[in-house]
């Protein structure tokens, strides 16, 4: 199995989720994260002191998929998450030794 991790813009979550559902992704796990990269942060002001904030809100998706689906899923992800502006995020894929469904003990492809 493969684990696909994607860092996307938070307001793209709904679109991405819908697109992935259509592409047959059965489940995923979503985490609120902050990202640092090329995208410029913003300035905050508190009583005359200016603070440069360079961590920006992002959303992280983790989904374990069958190896043969990786190409399609990343394709769908890229398409749905892209706005074309800096800060759209990254996707990375790692190898999973084993996937288990806790409820049933099913393994790998059966467990997605």
């Amino acid at each position, binding site marked *: 199995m493969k684990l696909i991790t994607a860092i996307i813009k938070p307001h793209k979550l709904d679109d991405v989720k819908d697109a992935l559902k259509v592409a047959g992704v059965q489940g995923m796990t979503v985490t609120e994260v902050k990202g640092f990269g090329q995208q410029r942060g*913003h300035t*905050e*002001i508190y009583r005359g002191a200016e603070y440069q904030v360079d961590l920006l809100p992002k959303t992280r998706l983790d989904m374990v998929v069958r190896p043969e689906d990786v190409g399609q899923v990343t394709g769908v992800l890229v398409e749905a998450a892209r706005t074309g502006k800096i800060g759209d995020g990254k996707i990375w894929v790692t190898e999973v030794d084993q996937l288990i469904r806790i409820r049933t003990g099913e393994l790998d492809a059966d467990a997605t």
Partner: protein
Amino acid sequence: MIDRGDTAWLLIATALVLFMTPGLAFFYAGMVRSKNVLGMLMQNFFAMGLLAVLWVVIGFSLAFGNFGDGGWIGNLDYFGMANVGQTATTLGAGGWMADGKGMTLTIPFLLFAAFQMTFAIITPALITGATADRFKFKAYVVFIGAWLILVYAPVAHWVFGGGWLAKLGALDFAGGAVVHINAGAASLAIVLVLGKRLGWPKEQMHPHSLPWTLIGAGILWFGWAGFNAGSALAADGIAVQALYNTFVAASAGMLGWLLVERMKDGKPTTLGAASGAVAGLVAITPNAGYVGGMAPVFIGLAAGIVCFLAIQLKFRFGYDDSLDVVGVHLVGGLLGSLLLGVFASKVYNPAGADGLIEGDLTLLKNQAIASISVLVFSFVVSLIIAKVIDLLMHARVDETDEEIGLDLSQHAEAAYSD
């Protein structure tokens, strides 16, 4: 002659009404998304800053100068608080007013001006609920300033200042028309100019913190005692009647709203409880010192039910009244003003009038005239002001700023951090 009991009551009533604007700020701020919290709070707190100063410089004079002239707008007699002192006074003695004696205050005239100031703050602030999440701060500032002078002051004069609607015989104890219809109609006008929030109505925009909304509702409820019972301008039986009516109508408003909500959606919600109470409070406002007995129960129930139904209109007609100022304040204000024509009775206030229930149709007719007049005037002038501002400086934030949220884009702040 100054009565110290009356003065004590109006002192605290003034403070109570002032406290309503922070209450309103939180009532609204709980309902917006977390990126727009400070934008909402700021607009309300800023109203407390700007409008108080405008009021003492010129607003009060335009609203209450030439008291009892039966006309359209005041004069500059009280410009910069000139002639507004610590002594009690009689207003409009020589005018059309029934007994020829005008309104004799038993509190310092300056206290009357301060009490009215708090109304002049919260009325424009009500509009912020309709325009949530997209009004450019600079444009907002210009808008409420202009609105105070061009809309609020004249309408207050018509009704509270002994102007033409008062002369006509329309009643409005604490501002069903002056406050709620007025702000509600303006809200409709300005959301038409601003347009819909990005993503509305498809995208889900959950209230980011209902506890804020609830504490705001609690403060509003508390402060409304000053708003309505303070409008008696004395600590007398009428004030007591107003207090009783106010609290009971708020409760009944909650019950009415929850009842239909339960029927339609299957669950009674906390937001519904708060909204229903506010609806009841809005509708009782014009009635507060003129009705009694079980009338506040009926008025409150009606308001809860009708306003719940009214907030669905925006989906039907496609205007984005973000937090339902039209549905609650315009509709609730209209309902209350008309129901006053039904339930008013001189039994509860000899200086009032008899409504339909006492067999007299005149009041209902006058209420309708007053309501429509204020609605149309406020809608039209607000639309013009908003359009002009939009032309001059774009009333709405640009798309990126809206996405980032008002907190960062307008105020360079984040509401929450570690």
